[in-house]
């Protein structure tokens, strides 16, 4: 299970950017990581202390905790190719 993806998406309430990010990551995972991912959506308004742990300052932020190393992507994830690049999905799929 080397190529399992553990992702956390930090959002702040039901803002348009939050909703867009949730939609985008759901679509992305379904497309590129079917069956080998978990996405946890964390609403910082409910759990603000989580922001400290993952050094969150921008909203929304996607954190890849697995595979290592830890990666952060800020934004609503609308530019798919950058997310794919940032999560190293293409490289790992090829190998």
């Amino acid at each position: 299970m080397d190529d399992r993806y553990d992702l956390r998406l930090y959002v702040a309430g039901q803002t348009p950017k939050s909703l867009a990010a949730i939609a985008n990551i759901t679509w992305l995972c379904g497309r590129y990581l079917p069956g080998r991912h978990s996405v946890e959506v964390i609403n910082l308004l409910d759990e603000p202390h989580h922001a400290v742990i993952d050094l969150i300052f921008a909203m929304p932020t996607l954190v890849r905790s697995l595979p290592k190393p830890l990666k952060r992507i800020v934004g609503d994830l609308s530019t798919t190719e950058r997310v794919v690049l940032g999560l190293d999905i293409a490289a790992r799929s090829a190998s």
Partner: protein
Amino acid sequence: MTPMQTELPAPQLAKAPTGIPGLDEVLLGGIPAGRPTLICGSPGCGKTLLGMTFLVNGATQFGEPGVFVSFEETPQDLAANVASLSFDVPGLIAEKKLAIEHIRIERSEIDEAGDYDLEGLFVRLGYAIDQIGAKRVVLDTLEALFANLSNEAVLRAELRRLFGWLKDRGLAAIITAERGEGTLTRHGLEEYISDCVILLDNRVQDQVTTRRLRIVKFRGSAHGTNEYPFLLDDQGITVVPLSSAGLGHRVSDEVVSTGVPGLDAMLGLGGIYRGSSLLISGVPGSGKTILGASFAAAACTRGDRCIFFSFEESAELLVRNVGSAGIDLQQHARSGLLRFETKRPTSFGFEMHLAHMQRELDRFRPSAVIVDPVTSFRGPDSEVHALLLRMIDILKTRGITTIFTSLTTSEERVAQSDFGLSSLMDTWVSLVDIESNGERNRGLYALKSRGMSHSNQIREYLLTGEGVRLIKAYLGVAGVLMGSARLAKEAQERVEAQQQRDEVARCRREVGSRRAVTERQIAELYAEIEAQDAEAARLIAQDELREMAFETDRAAMGASRGVYGNGEDKSQPPGQTLYDTRARV
């Protein structure tokens, strides 16, 4: 402390005091309580420390918890950096009086994909603030965002929102920013924070650093407008609002001793006025420092607090050297009345020297100060003069009696090397070398002394094991006699005095013997009188006997002739008449 506070009206704006000595005075109370304040400056000029001091003072002195948002240093580093200032950051954090939010932004770990905002920052800040009920916030430094995130449009919009958000929450916030080229901040933060802007400056001139602080703007409040030097050392930050020259200082009629009895005697009042200034100028080795130390010892003996600013000798050296002249400064230092401040004149700039001096004066509150020597300040004459002028003003406005020593070289004599100091001084004592008869002697005279009569004599003085001793002036044919000439004169006087004493004794003896002679003569005369009296008595007695014998003879003759017959002569003895007659003689 500064005149500004009294001259300007009370501020209308609610303010959050920083607790930084001097800064609150310049700000007339503190930074605005419900608005962000921008502090900008080049690296290493103390922005972070100022922010941390603001929070720690707020937590410890004003009961206002604070949140420090660090974009650069870790909480551990921050705590370690200020631990030397006795700021107990971990303790304050444990007491929930302080929170440190470290927002680490590492460009290499972050990708940007699509639209985003800084809501996460708001959430974290809001969370931290709510956790401890913070009233104060420091953001150090927001520019890390610009360095690590590429979407400047988003950043600017978000920062504008952040400052509005801080304002809405009524927080006293300090935002630090790097100084930019030609602008206050590198990323133009001053466009968003325009209520209060403080500029820190770290200027190096002639390899000497001077830190300065200026309030660029402060909406809704008056403030000090000058550049104020500030100190950044083991005492933390101290801003020193150098008060401008004023002549409105208190005047005292009290006279204090200079510590040298002979010098006191030369000055008409037996010393110098309390709060006045005494300049002691002299050539090398003339004992200026010893005179200064005498004054310090005298001040401490009176119970006055005293600071000895020594720019040439270390405290230990000074104590030892003046100790050889019988002046014990160590005991006064131990009793806490005397403090030494030893700094090389070149160790920092003039402004810093003044700032340092002013801080020490305000902290120790001495009533006597020695500055030894003022001539050790090197630089353009005009600057040195301005420095000394302000130094004198600082001391005078505090009513501190001050002794300045000033080094003159033999060629210059007086008036040349004093930077025009003399006109600022109340009393000026000049120590001179007098070379004559193949030797060098020390002379001292009072060049001027305002408000009192003073001796016009050049007096010789000696540096003895019991301090400075002034010697009676001898006027010879060619002037004042000193050294061996004086000794010769003294020896001569001693001989003359001895002669005089001998003469008096001789006179006394002579008078005594004459008196004895006269008394003897009187006794003889008395004896003569007595002898004469005795002779007279003997003659009278003889005469009586003779008379009695005569009467007896006559009576016997009469009886023999039978005169007794008429009886009238019998009522009175015949000798009675003779006795009466003699008694009348």
